[in-house]
């Protein structure tokens, strides 16, 4: 299991929890499980999310490996100038 920190406005869709535990070995599994467990997150996942894994931000990379002790933070999809 990995502990995923989600951002505040998503808590409305995770029964108010700021951190959820999911079984996932990589980014794709994480997104799939989240969408399955918390269907309210689907629209945001479809619009795009980034993943911060131990402080490093990933934007699309599905197969980025996640260890069970990794710090996993879900973030909005990032765009720059």
């Amino acid at each position, binding site marked *: 299991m990995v502990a995923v*920190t989600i*951002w*505040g*406005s*998503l*808590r*409305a869709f995770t029964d108010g929890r*700021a951190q959820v535990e999911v079984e996932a070995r990589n980014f794709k599994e994480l997104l799939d499980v989240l969408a399955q467990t918390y269907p*309210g997150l689907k*629209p*945001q996942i479809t*619009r795009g999310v980034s993943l*911060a894994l*131990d*402080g*490093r*931000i*990933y*934007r*699309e*990379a599905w197969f*980025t490996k996640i260890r069970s002790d990794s*710090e996993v*933070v*879900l*973030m*909005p*999809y*990032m*765009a*720059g*100038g």
Partner: protein
Amino acid sequence: MALDSNNKRVFKVVGTRPPRPDGIEKVTGRALYGADVSAPGMLVGRILRSPHAHAAILSIDTSAAEALAGVKAVITAQDFAVQDDSALRDVQENCMARGKVLYDGHAVAAVAALTPAIAKAALKLIKVTYKALPHVTDVDVAMRPDAPVVQAGRSFENVPAGMAENVTSQCEFGHGDLAAGFAAAALIVERSFTTAAVHQGYIEPQACLASMTADGKADLWCCTQGQYHVRALCAALLGMEASQLRVTASEIGGGFGGKTTVFIEPVALALSRKSGKPVKIVMTRDEVFKATGPTVSSSIDVKIGMTKDGRITAGEAHLRYSGGAFHCGTIDMGAQAAFAAYDLQAVRTLGWNVLTNRPKEVAYRAPGAPQAIYAVESVVDELCQKLGLDPLDVRLKNAARKGTKSSYGPTFDDIGLMATLEAAKAHPHYTAPLAPGQGRGLSAGFWFNFGGNTCVSLNINTDGTVGITEGNPDIGGSRAAISQMAAEELGIPYEKVRTIIADTSSLGHNDITDGSRVTFAVGLATIKAAQDAIQKMCARVATLWEIDAEAVVWEDGCAKPSGPNAGQFPPMTLAEIAAISFNTGGPIAGHHEFNADGAGVSFGVHLVDVEVDRETGATKVLRYTVFQDAGKAVHPSYVEGQMQGGAVQGIGWALNEEYIYGEDGRLQNAGFLDYRVPVASDLPNIETVILEIPNPGHPYGVRGVGETPIVPPLAALSNAVSRAIGLRMNRLPMSPPRILAALSAKR
């Protein structure tokens, strides 16, 4: 390889300041920008734009224009397919209004004609019947429940019921117990701020040349920060397959984020498709201001608590951004960045994006961060003033560092904020005396920085030179930096490498030149492509020497036996290996394709001294110093250039630049004359101090540097002015009438 983490890598090429490869073309006027190419039989494209801030389009009659001699095509939104995807639909409707015009300057029709004069006459013959609708251009007004609705039904599921229909999204970030934090504070300051929308102000207006043939194949030449993105958007809007559309990025005359989308490109393609001729569209400056993307405008409330000795106990911000008539996600970035410079136990930001009748926001350098950090850094400065604390000491005390749980969630790795603050404190600028009427301000700034999808080819030419093909338009010298990294990795002189930027058909996808990603991500791909080539060259040499490939190493631009056991062979240079490549297996090239991660975040600190004329409200910038962590400055001159240019754009934002709307919702100052970007005589030299705290995610330690420098100037200037006049300013720009009004109110 001897691993000694305390030993910094010694670079030969990286860190030097060679001439940029496109230098001579640019100083002789030979470089070709968006408007500089022509095609035989080319037509002139012109766009008809809305004179209304908000109106229903009842009808468009193009018959008279079509009948005019010399007019070859007229198009409206009907010439574009309706998009299912909401993001694509927004792009299409921003390029050409469908049903409603949503802002002053919104495109409604376009013509292609033999000459500019005929095109102009044709526009006058297009009859558009409008029904004017109530409009709203102010973000706070647009949030009221009774505000005119810009576009209905655009709210995301995260917007709570009961909010105005113009609110399209809500976001929230942070952690910790705010109530406990504020209870622990000796002083709490709560203030509201507004910032005006500002434009990137690139000197080159958008320009493109499109040529589509009857079989549906097309070529598009345009000034853009991302030719692949242009291809994707145009192909979708015109119903083309990507392979049929080749997009070539011209030299680009500034972007700063503003050239990360399309405006005229799909229009030129549609006109070319309809007329069967090449069509060139060049925007006027007026069109650039009215119809391309400025930043969001903002309205922000910040509340921060501090102990007597300067420890921040809690921070909270409510941010309302408007990115014009379409949804934009910039609020997410602002709400995450607001408190990024601080190590906080309790922090919360809440943000909303709000629709207004203004042009669609497009990224501008660190989009969303300057506004949020301006508000936070202003309140921090006021707390320091009220508690009698040194503002640098307070920032040092609260600075985010390695191991800090950031205000937006992740824990920071190696970051350069402490080093940057310490450098500012040690700099003579910080302790230089100030005369009466002068004030000194400082602010920290932050940007995330990105990596992203990147693809690089590196070809070893038979004469020992190297050609690099990459796919990111070079806005500020990146071809030089990429050549430097290739030369470094290959161990050859910089002069032996030439980097070019490919069209979309010559190289795989590359993300836009944005997010301060190019030197980081394209540089990383280049290093890896060089390693790929090196591996191939070592293999060729191993075959020649009849030893194992693993027994050949690459050092100082040569293949060498890895040690005495590998055998005795004289080193072979890259040129020697290249010269016999046809005999050893054919051409040698290295490639790398990846979705780059590991972009390190970036922090900067700016110090500014100003003098305010108390009788006129005019602010003079006396001295300015930028401190920034570059990870590793590949070409220090261009790193300094980013720091200086970003600082000056921020100075303009703080002092004079703004979108000014009349009661009628029309833009009042759509030109350089009244938009007022800084001119040379407004400014002192901009001193720079580059810190190099290596980014662990890059072999040379490189971090993106392009965006962070626009973040601190807003608060640095506001804090300096506030200290100079003894009044806290809370509205940008701090134009002279506003400063004088504040002073008069005090009197």
